[in-house]
């Protein structure tokens, strides 16, 4: 059972209280973009075995969207952070670096 800390209301919510929203920090493409760009936005996903960044919604709680940094091969949670950002905060990246030296995820490391 996954337990995530909601950075908005402060509750430690287990996964039945949350809704998984897929990969975080996806770049959105609009009119005039190429087919490949739309494909990457709509369908192509990182799917890492290890460090991953995701969107979650505290659906049966405060209702807010937030981000989580998690390991998909151990289910360890590195931390959660506000959805009002385009990249993970340094503090969370440092925490991951301490536990998974040499990690990288898309352009972040």
């Amino acid at each position, binding site marked *: *059972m996954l337990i995530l800390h909601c950075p908005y209301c402060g509750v430690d919510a287990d*996964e039945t209280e949350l809704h998984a929203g897929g990969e975080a920090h996806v770049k959105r493409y609009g009119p005039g973009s190429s087919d490949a760009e739309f494909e990457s936005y709509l369908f*192509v*996903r990182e*799917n*890492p075995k290890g460090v991953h960044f995701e969107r979650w919604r505290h659906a049966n709680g405060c209702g807010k969207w937030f981000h989580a940094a998690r390991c998909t091969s151990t289910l360890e949670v590195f931390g959660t952070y506000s959805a009002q950002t385009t990249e993970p905060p340094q503090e969370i990246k440092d925490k991951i670096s301490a536990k998974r030296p040499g990690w990288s995820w898309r352009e972040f490391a």
Partner: protein
Amino acid sequence: MKRYSAFAIAREGLRQHTGWERAWASPEPKSSYDVIIVGAGGHGLATAYYLGKNFGITNVAILEKGWLGGGNTGRNTTIIRSNYLQDSSAAIYEKARSLYETMSQDLNYNVMFSPRGVMMLAQTQHEIRGYQRTAHANALQGVSTEFIGPEQVKKLVPIINIDGPRYPVLGALWQPRGGTARHDAVAWGYARACSDMGMHVIQKCEVTGIRREGDKVVGVDTNRGAIDCNKLGVVVAGHSGQLADMAGFRLPLESVALQALVSEPIKPCMDVVVMANTVHGYMSQSDKGEMVIGGGTDSFNNFTQRGSFHHIEETVRALVETFPMISRLKMLRQWGGIVDVTGDRSPILSKTPVDGMFVNCGWGTGGFKAIPGSGWGFAELIAKGDSPLCDEFSMFRFREGKFIDESVAAGVAH
């Protein structure tokens, strides 16, 4: 290879069973093969088998990181059906179902195919209309299914409660020629037949890199050294993304855990497969008497081969309402497998941006039933460069918007 037969059993019975030979060899890898298949699960082994049988390509190695059939091939609920809506899905799944009918004879290995019938319950008005539409589509596709009423459901499955308070059974899509098979035997039978053709089934051999020269694949690096190949088929389900990453491209896939469980064994009580998609549970009874129950997928990426417990609770809650007599049963075992799910829930059998490299993945929550058809088509794709069974399942369909919009999954509404 010595053939298995009633005579062989009698012969061995008379000499203390000393004459059985190993079902497949465990050779050291050679430095080069015509074709390397990564992944010795059902789909990978079936691909190798049909490469040899249909195209005479036998200089083939099948590399397996773990043990043969130890991934999703050994973790599914063994259901075989082909009652899909779209023509391209019906074609490949019906090919697979028909190959299952003769697989034991073809491989000289008893895969215990049991065409006991698969029933998908309609428990809402929407489902009735959906399944009637599927039955009509199946009639046009040459797949034998019919929509049956609740009385007939009750007659076929006496233990079912058709008057449930929340979701009464209003009818069902019935495929009498669907059923189950022994999943391990499918992998073992194909491995034995491949080994007999001179192919190398190499276990505990993990691919750690894919070697290219320009745009062309030339071999793989493994924990047992580098191996050259002309063509490479990647059939690794949940880890397809990792292999694609080694080759330098991305796939439209996400890996999640799907789980299943079995009850303690009980006397025979249900001789068909029942799927209840609205409440989300499906159940059949194994030859050992265990009730085999399929659960749901986790909603988040996961490589741990175990799922979240609340899915079991939801599945069992739904099934207890539909089958009240199972309420006192104890759970015997529970397990998970990592399934790779695409955007349209249909598989990918495709060329890739790397010349000579092919991928067979994205079967999501419903791959076992497709094993022989998938192997048949994918072997043709590797041998000839195109295959009528696979053409629609290209990985490039997402860019082109040519989806195969099918609730392949466990037939579960998306």
